[in-house]
């Protein structure tokens, strides 16, 4: 096995996104009701009316499940290039620049060492806010490095996954190959007895779902998250009908035996801690 770790310890500093909405009210995308922003923040960003879990940022995820001050980001400086010299209405470079400014992130995936409960772990977060959490070369590379780190340090890997964009169009087939790259490492996790927990968040679709996101030992999803392979609009065009309410949502997947558990955000840290404890080597 070859590990390509060039160890660099870069503390996470997701810059505060400059254009944070100043609106005091937010509209729930699921039930369309208005929610006072302060109320939303108090409640783990869960809609008090319908229980929809608003999408979190990378920083919010870290705050939610990692012991304070223990997250140590790695490889933050791996950034995308434009291998296809993509010529669209917007170039890839323009799109990247825009997303960086908007999210304060370098790329869609952030990973590093983290204490979750009492277990030193490797945490990987795919942020659906950055080009829809789509997977290009950097996401693929960083996820594999996260797994390699977990194997070297004999720690479990927890992946929070919001990969709504699937494989990233701007990198063409290179993105599709990231599905292989991130899936095949799962075999190494198995051989090294490295626990892999995947938490699917809204939305996780296409090439992300059909690769590393679904290949974990334990699959957990947030309530009402959109998860699946084909996008709902594509399916609607194919069947020429409206899809039933709740289709491709976590609860639907759970009913069809595709998930171990649907865990509300308020219980996520507790649930992860419990699982990690069970798998931790006995003292």
């Amino acid at each position, binding site marked *: 096995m070859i590990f390509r770790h060039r160890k660099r310890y870069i503390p996470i500093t997701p810059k505060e996104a400059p254009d944070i909405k100043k609106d005091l009210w937010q509209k729930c995308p699921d039930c369309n009701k208005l929610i006072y922003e302060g109320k939303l923040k108090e409640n783990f960003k869960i809609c008090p009316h319908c229980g929809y879990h608003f999408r979190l940022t990378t920083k919010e995820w870290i705050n939610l499940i990692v012991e304070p001050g223990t997250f140590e980001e790695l490889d933050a400086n791996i950034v995308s290039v434009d291998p*296809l010299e993509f010529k669209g209405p917007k170039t890839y470079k323009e799109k990247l620049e825009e997303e960086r400014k908007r999210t304060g992130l370098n790329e869609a995936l952030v990973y590093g060492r983290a204490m979750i409960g009492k277990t030193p772990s490797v945490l990987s977060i795919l942020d659906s806010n950055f080009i829809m959490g789509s997977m290009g070369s950097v996401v693929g590379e960083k996820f*594999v490095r996260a797994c390699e780190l977990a194997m070297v340090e004999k720690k479990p890997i927890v992946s929070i996954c919001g990969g709504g964009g699937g494989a990233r169009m701007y990198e063409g087939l*290179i993105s599709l190959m990231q599905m292989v790259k991130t899936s*095949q490492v799962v075999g190494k996790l198995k051989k090294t007895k490295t626990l892999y927990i995947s938490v699917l968040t809204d939305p996780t679709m296409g090439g992300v779902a*059909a690769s590393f996101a679904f*290949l974990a030992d334990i699959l957990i999803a947030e309530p009402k998250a959109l998860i699946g*392979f084909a996008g709902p609009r594509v399916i609607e065009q194919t069947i020429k009908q409206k899809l039933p309410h709740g289709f491709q949502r976590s609860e639907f997947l759970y009913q069809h035996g595709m998930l171990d558990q649907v865990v509300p955000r308020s219980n996520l840290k507790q649930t992860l801690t419990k699982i990690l404890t069970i798998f931790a080597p006995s003292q």
Partner: protein
Amino acid sequence: MSEMQRKYLDFEKPLEEIEKNISELREIKKRKNVDNQLQITQLQQLFREKTKEIYANLTAWQKVQVARHPQRPRTSDYIDGLIEQFYEFHGDRIHGDDPAIIAGIGKFRSKSVAIIGHQKGKDTEENIKRNFGMAHPEGYRKALRIMKIAEKFSFPVVTLVDTPGAHPHIEAEERNQALAIASNIYQMSEIQTPIIVIIIGEGGSGGALGIGVGDKIAMLEFSIYSVISPEGCASILWKDQKAVKEASEALKLTAPELLKLGLIDEIIKEPSGGAHSQSQEMIRTLGDYIEKNIAELSSIEINALLEKRYEKYRNMGFYKIENQEIL
């Protein structure tokens, strides 16, 4: 020129004209017993030259059309032409059999092989039966089942990729299309027997990759392989389904471009007017490619082969490291 009624694509119109003229001359020759053979021969020569000229300068979008040509040889044609005593397997042992994927074993030039491919129809009726080569989870699971059998007996696996994509449907989602594809990708990276993947027509995204991981990845000269269809890309990025030409260029989905990016290993040459113009020649060429590569891969010790397979994908990706301190 083939005997069957050839369907001409828009940019092949000049060829259609010439062919029309040739058949008219033949008709006259037969009816009036005129000796116009010289004219016919000249036109045939012109047909060949024009074919070469057109096919030497295809745009990305034109290649998409060639890759989707209704008369392009299908998986079943390659099986018929190359595999003796083909035995087809059916079903995933769980839910059903998926006609969009053909999977079986047989003798290829005296060696036992497993061969698996998406099957598009040759006509409307077969297309409906085959679901236009768009597989359900059962198809991927059947494919994996046959690969496991091949592994057990150390038969090399050949997969032929030709699909617009995995089937986008309620039922496919209910039976976990995402996991069916993910499992195949993961397991193919570990199957302990050589795997040769050939894109024979349309390599449509995850649906293609579900049988597309291997030691050698080849593409027919005018096939395409893409993360998304040009139509899908056009409607998402250009907000205009008609921007397919621009999207096809931007996606770099042609064989030469993908070879240059290091994502495929080899381009298999097509007859000068595309695989559909001379299917027998195409089938032979593809057979030769398979023969050569089975020989090459079979000579590599299996653990070394698997390590090589892993490294190949491990190294795919383009990125840079910003502000790297020189240590």
